[in-house]
């Protein structure tokens, strides 16, 4: 795919609007906001001209508010995916390219779910004898009002369609990615940053679903539509939550490094304060996603890290009989030091880490627990042994004498 083909990722509606001045003159994001703001102004104006009930104007504004919030969430998709770096796995890269291609396809599939919602909705509204239209606009409303309300309904339906479309695609992408990740070899992976982007987009969609609750008052008199909105809300929210959960289980380390981190027993932690460096061995655990190590409350490195949380963390496999098989991974980045203040929010991850320590170093745990030890060595979690999480921004991996930089 060459540069020109890799066009701006835009959806049909935004593309059309983007060609009409004044919207074509300002940036994409602001043009959507301006467009919805104009809709609000026109709505209020029409409301006054035709003497619409205040409650109806409130409903209209509510619908516009929902459309604005949805737009703001969904508009993060394209820029986020645009800064996406290619995964270091051909299959995963192909998958994500396909995902982007379907999402922003030239045939504009994304408008289909919107139409599928819009057409039956309009039919229901005008021919099924619901009294919603009368409740909103009064008896025998002016054609301009009807057109305006239809435009508003299209705005909502189109975005509902996008919500369904993006969340289904996201779930498909997450499931496929998880499967492909299980077949990785050597250094293949999708970097951490990119996985977090995908997860963030999924969380956006969760909010997308929740926001639809704001539409409920508008349809409170119509049981069917009320149910439809609820179903939509649950569908988008749950699909996106599942997708985000699956992404959180995709390993962000390539298998070679994953195995090294998973199997090795010791690590070294390098810290620095005012240029003076310090390096000591530590015991650590890895839960598949996060790396934690333990330090005594009295340790010098803890005092250093409290003032400068930048670290280098090295895990290696050393074997003098065959140095060409030696492997090492250095993570540079920051640490998060867990303290009492973290208990309310992170109790589960702290307990989880502690459990992993007991499993990985049973003898340590036993020996550390004896009361004959100096206080600093006793394994009283949080009180004297401090839990520290490594948050890498860069990984260097050595295999034999070969050095490889692995994107995070």
């Amino acid at each position: 795919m060459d540069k020109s083909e890799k066009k701006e990722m835009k959806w049909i509606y935004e593309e059309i609007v983007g060609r009409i001045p004044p919207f074509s003159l300002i940036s994409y994001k602001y043009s959507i906001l301006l467009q919805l703001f104009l809709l609000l102004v026109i709505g209020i104006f029409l409301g006054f001209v035709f003497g619409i009930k205040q409650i109806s104007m409130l409903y209209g504004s509510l619908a516009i508010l929902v459309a604005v919030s949805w737009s703001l969430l969904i508009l993060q998709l394209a820029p986020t995916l645009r800064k996406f770096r290619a995964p270091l796995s051909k299959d995963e890269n192909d998958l994500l390219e396909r995902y982007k291609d379907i999402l922003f396809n030239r045939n504009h599939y994304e408008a289909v779910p919107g139409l599928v919602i819009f057409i039956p909705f309009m039919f229901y509204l005008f021919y099924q004898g619901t009294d919603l239209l009368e409740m909103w606009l009064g008896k025998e409303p002016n054609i301009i009002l009807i057109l305006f309300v239809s435009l508003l309904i299209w705005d909502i339906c189109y975005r509902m369609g996008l919500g369904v479309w993006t969340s289904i695609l996201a779930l498909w992408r997450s499931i496929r990615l998880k499967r492909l990740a299980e077949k990785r070899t050597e250094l293949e992976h999708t970097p951490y940053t990119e996985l977090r982007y995908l997860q963030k987009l999924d969380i956006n969609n969760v909010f997308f679903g929740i926001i639809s609750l704001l539409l409920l008052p508008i349809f409170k008199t119509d049981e069917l539509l009320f149910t439809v909105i609820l179903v939509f809300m649950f569908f988008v929210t749950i699909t996106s939550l599942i997708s985000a959960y699956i992404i959180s289980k995709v390993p962000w380390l390539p298998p070679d490094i994953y195995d090294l981190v998973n199997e090795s027993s010791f690590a070294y932690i390098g810290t620095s304060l005012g240029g003076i460096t310090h390096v000591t061995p530590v015991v650590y655990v890895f839960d598949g996603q996060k790396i934690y190590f333990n330090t005594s409350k009295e340790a010098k490195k803890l005092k250093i890290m409290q003032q400068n949380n930048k670290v280098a963390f090295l895990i290696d496999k050393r074997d003098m009989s065959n140095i060409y098989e030696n492997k090492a991974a250095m993570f540079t980045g920051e640490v998060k030091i867990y303290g009492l203040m973290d208990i309310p929010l992170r109790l589960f991850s702290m307990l989880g880490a502690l459990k992993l320590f007991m499993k990985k170093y049973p003898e340590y745990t036993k020996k550390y627990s004896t009361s004959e030890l100096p206080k600093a060595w006793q394994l009283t979690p949080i009180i004297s042994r401090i839990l520290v999480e490594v948050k890498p921004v860069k990984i260097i991996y050595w295999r034999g004498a070969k050095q490889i930089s692995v994107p995070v």
Partner: protein
Amino acid sequence: MQIPDEMRNILYANYFGYVCTSDRFDQPHLTPVFFVYDENSHKLFFITNERSKKIKNLSENPNVSITIDIRDPVNPFNNEGVMAQGTANITDRAPIYFLSEETLQLYYDIYLEFKSKYQKVIDNKPMGENDVIIQINIEKMVYWKGPHFKSLKFKKDSQVIS
């Protein structure tokens, strides 16, 4: 000069050292190295590629630390190690025929040391074209065994002060 036996034993009996340097933003960097300890000069030496990140860091900040240890995955009371902190000298990076007599001698001596210590792995491989010898002037040493710590500080002339 004499350092306590337990420290000496660790420095002589182990093959891997973990060198920590940091750049001007105080971002640490950590790599495993082969090293030799020279008792007479009370210095540690390691060889590295002059284009490595370590060298870049050391030219920004000469402070360095190195840990050499024995790790026991079962019993932490057997864990034993030494961390030395000090400053690094990067020996001249000029082509070999421009080096001073003194440096050449150092290269020769240290290289022989390396060869005898790491014979198994480096065979007769000569030093690489871009390899330089880094010399660590030890200012402080920490020794641990299990939960016990011992710390030593050295003056410029390598006298033990504490």
